[in-house]
Every structure is written in structure tokens, then in C-alpha cells.
């Protein structure tokens, strides 16, 4: 079973609260601005993410979502 973490770049205001709470230091601020004029956060080291959801919990703008990815190969078997 795998999980997919997505960050809504348009919602993110680049406050950096998620970066501070991430135990695996996965997140960093981007150098490109989003449509609101903020520097949004992105997964700099996505392989380190263990989907603890602390960043989601801390995000004031509910910009981070973690969904379960349905494995196609196991579904066919």
C-alpha cells in the first residue's frame, strides 16, 4: 500500500510552519512564486516522507493532502 502526498501550490502561503514540524526534513520553500505572490513549499526529498501527516496538521491553509494510492497490479491479480 502506498500513499501520495500533494501540495496545492495555489493555496500555500509559504509560511513555513510545515517545514519546521517535518521530522524527516522533506519540505523546503520553492524559489518560484505562486499566483498569490508567495513562495510555496515543495517536497525536496519526497523519498524520505513517511506520511506522518504532521505537516497537514500544522498547515493553516489545508494545502497538503495525503491520499492512498490504489495499487493497480494487486487489483488485477
Amino acid at each position: 500500500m502506498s500513499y501520495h502526498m500533494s501540495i496545492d501550490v495555489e493555496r500555500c502561503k509559504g509560511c513555513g510552519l510545515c517545514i519546521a514540524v517535518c521530522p524527516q526534513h522533506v519540505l523546503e520553500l520553492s524559489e518560484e512564486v505562486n499566483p498569490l505572490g508567495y513562495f510555496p513549499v515543495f517536497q525536496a526529498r519526497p523519498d524520505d516522507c513517511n506520511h506522518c501527516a504532521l505537516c497537514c496538521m500544522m498547515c493553516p491553509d489545508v494545502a497538503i493532502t495525503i491520499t492512498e494510492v490504489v495499487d493497480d497490479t494487486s487489483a488485477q491479480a
Partner: protein
Amino acid sequence: MPKTFKKPEALSDQKTHYCPGCTHGVIHRLVAEVIDELGVRGRTVGIAPVGCAVLAYNYFTFDFLEAAHGRAPAMATGIKRVRPDLIVFTYQGDGDLASIGMGEIIHAANRGEKFTTIFVNNAVYGMTGGQMAPTTMPHQRTTTSPFGRDVADVGMPVKMAELLSALQTPGYITRQTVIKPKHIVRAKKAIKQAFTYQLEGKCFSLVEVVSTCPVNWGMTPLDAIKWTEETLLPYYQLGDVKTPEN
């Protein structure tokens, strides 16, 4: 530990107008999650204050009203008395509840009105531009106290939770914060408890949430969290101040 996370249904898709790093968004989400978990979204009415959360009706997918400055508890009293089956809550800031709305909240709590108040205490007037609030800390600089709050002149910050718990009427009064994930978990539990007491028709409930205001404090969001921990929390101590059992 949950491995998935998504926006609660009671929260709308609208982007919030709050400043970056403002914890209003976290508190909105906790309220929405509790409403979803209790399954009462169809019969919930929220009441917005005057203050930063004045536009809160844009962010929730249930009925919302906007009260005159500080008068949200009066409005909630009316709605709850006419329709006791509804779940009514007010969402107020410290400039709204602890200042101009002091009379309304004290009498609503003293009458034991069966609604819930979410009181967001960030020690400053946010929307109007960072003026000194009744909850501003001693020596804290604001636009109307540029040399810091002078305690000899304007007194000490008001501890609303303790003040309201001095009333003899039973109630649930608690103080929480949302500056770290562990606090967020506790705050959600407290909000759920407050709504549960309301569902049972038991008592008045108030959850004070010590919050941050990075822009008006003149700090980065992370410094604001640190300042909250070092300055606000020793004065505004966390925990249940009053429960209906005692």
C-alpha cells in the same frame, strides 16, 4: 497514526484571507473536523465576530451569521433558545469577546446558555491594524502602545477563561493552543468535548485558543510560535479551567 489526510467536508474550497502563518486556519479546520465527526453539519449555525474572522462564513459549508461587534453571544442565545435542536457556536477573537463583547459573554455564560464559543486569543487586535487588546501582554509593543503595554496605566491582561470560570453556573471552560501538532490534537479534543456538552444540552462551553498573529506582532510565523511558547503560554496556562462536574 492516520496515513491519509484531506480537507474536512465542512470546510469550503475558498482560499482564506488570513496572513501567512496565522493559526486561524488551523482552528477553522479543527471546528470543521469536529462538525464532520459529530455528523451535525446539516443543523449547525456558526456566528462570526467582528475581527479577522469576520469573513468566516466564506470558509464553512454550513449556515453562518455575522453579529455586531461583540454581540455574537447575544445572537447565539436567541438562536439557541428558539431552536434548541440546532448546534450553535460563536467564533470570536479577543478584541471582540474580551473587550466590547465582555458584557454579552459573561451574561451568556452566567445564564448557562447551551451554545459553544471558540475564543481565539492572539493578544492583539488583528484586523484593525495591531492595536492593544485587553489580552495584550505587559511590555508588548502594539500600534497603540508603541513603548509596550504599561501595566501601571492600563492594568494586566485579562484572563478570560479564569474570569468566566469564577461564575457559579456550571460550564465547560478550557484553554488550548495550536502552535504544535501535540497542542492541535489536544485542542481538537477540547473542541469536540465542548460540542458534545452542547449536544447533550448540558452547559455553556468555551474553548479559548491561544493563537498567533505574526504580522501584527512584527515577527516571522516561526518566531511568532516561539514567542507564543515563551511569553503567552506561561501567563495563559493551558488546560481545563472548569468542567461541569466540578
